[in-house]
């Protein structure tokens, strides 16, 4: 692949995982965002967006409880999207390709957090002498440099040489395997949704999941319609319990 594109990918991955700005990585590191940018680069915005969004859905439920990264959507996206756009791979196979990288990214994050321990201990010393500028560097500057090295390098290398490797593999891939990937691409988003149910799905409100599900299944409404109805129901519930609480108080 083009040197420049590989460098761009490296930089996009760095930005998307630098964590400068709380929650910002959810936008700058979103496979959808990558899909848009790389889609523009390859002149295939729509395909880029579709691959990106499909990958995004797999990881939509992820929460970094206690700072632990359960999977790395950004690495999954930044590897699979450009290679797919370059080699003309179909969406499902691209998703299949993305998944292992979603795992690999965890190790990069673990390295980062391990090295961070060093900066904390440093900062402690600076605190003693009240050197807040140095504390600032320990808190932001040094970890950022570290993460740049940790993220840019592997992505640059993989995207540079990956496309060729993938193309040769693709040529020998039998249809049966492609069908299998297609199934994976169809099922994997279930993962993202299941995870969220784990977090917010108390038994007594689970029926709302099914209402949302069947609303789409039987009435073929789009997701925003479901969001609108869901919002109304949520608001009614809210107002209702506030009202009841007030009654109890009186």
């Amino acid at each position: 692949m083009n040197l420049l594109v590989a460098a761009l990918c490296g930089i996009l991955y760095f930005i998307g995982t630098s964590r400068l700005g709380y929650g910002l990585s959810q936008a700058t590191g979103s496979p959808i965002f990558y899909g848009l940018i790389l889609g523009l680069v390859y002149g295939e915005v729509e395909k880029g967006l579709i691959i990106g969004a499909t990958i995004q859905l797999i990881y939509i439920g992820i929460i970094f409880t206690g700072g632990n990264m359960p999977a790395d959507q950004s690495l999954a996206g930044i590897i699979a999207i450009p290679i797919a756009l370059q080699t003309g791979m179909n969406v499902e196979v691209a998703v299949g390709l993305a998944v292992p990288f979603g795992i690999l990214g965890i190790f990069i994050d673990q390295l980062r957090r391990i090295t961070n321990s060093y900066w904390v201990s440093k900062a402690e010393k600076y605190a003693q002498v009240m050197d807040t500028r140095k504390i600032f560097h320990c808190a932001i500057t040094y970890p950022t440099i570290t993460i740049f090295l940790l993220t840019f390098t592997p992505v640059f290398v993989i995207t540079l040489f990956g496309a060729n490797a993938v193309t040769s593999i693709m040529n020998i891939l039998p249809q049966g395997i492609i069908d299998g990937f297609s199934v994976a691409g169809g099922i994997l988003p279930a993962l993202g949704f299941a995870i969220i149910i784990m977090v917010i799905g108390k038994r007594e409100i689970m029926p709302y999941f099914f209402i949302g599900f069947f609303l789409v299944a039987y009435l073929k409404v789009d997701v925003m319609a479901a969001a609108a109805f869901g919002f109304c129901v949520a608001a009614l519930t809210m107002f209702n319990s506030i009202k009841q609480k007030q009654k109890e108080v009186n």
Partner: protein
Amino acid sequence: MSSNLDEIQKQRELTNRDLMKTYARWYLSVEVSNSYERLQALAFCNALSGSLKKLYKDDDQGYREALIRHLQFYNSEGTFGAVIHGVVLSMEEEKAKSKDSSDSLSEEVITGFKTGLMGPIAGIGDTLIWGTLKPIILALASSLALSGLFIGGIVPFLFPLAVILIGYGMMKSGYLLGKDSVTKLMKSGLINNLINSASILGLFMMGALSSTYIKVSTPLEFSFKNAEPIVIQDILDQILVGILPLAAVFGIYFYFKLRGQYYNRLIMWLIVISLITGFFGILQGS
């Protein structure tokens, strides 16, 4: 209400500008220095350092102690958690003011408040911000992107935007209302109501998304002599539309429930199962 807060603010040391600066530092660095050992401790200390300086003025001893105090282990959800920063600043202000008097706020009270609240607030924030707001915004983005609309790639930025606005509001309220109001709010049922409603919306969306984006069906058919073939998917649809996607979600859900949340192990399993069922034409991805 807001004019009420303005009233309070006039009698306080830190201006809006100070709070904004503090929040900006926090916002920027929350996760950057996150380590296994102390998690968000360094970010916490770094965020407060400027404001602490202003509060302790030239009481170097107090300032140093404060810095060290806030380098201790800390971890909460960064957005809602900002209310803790606010309250801590108000407590530090009190402490700085009354440093010599006997009823000065002891270090233990401040640390106790921090560590006591960071857990519950992490739970609230993880549920509301990360478990509900984030997936809803990303779902909207995905849905737009899958329709080929470029704004799908922009919509995710609504999330950090919301985080900034909510987080700053939290910090400011914490600072102005102080410890007692926050503890009181936590005890009132209001937050549970909010979580409940947000969860309802979240579940509703997840249901709709599951139905829309999980694509799996079976191509199986049984043929009999002299009879129309029995198309399994047709029978399934007659029984319940979307029964396979539903099975996928709850298969995964119960796997997690029973085996623990081994995310990546499960992904691997799913790929293996997909390859096998896809290869033999038992399932198809549409």
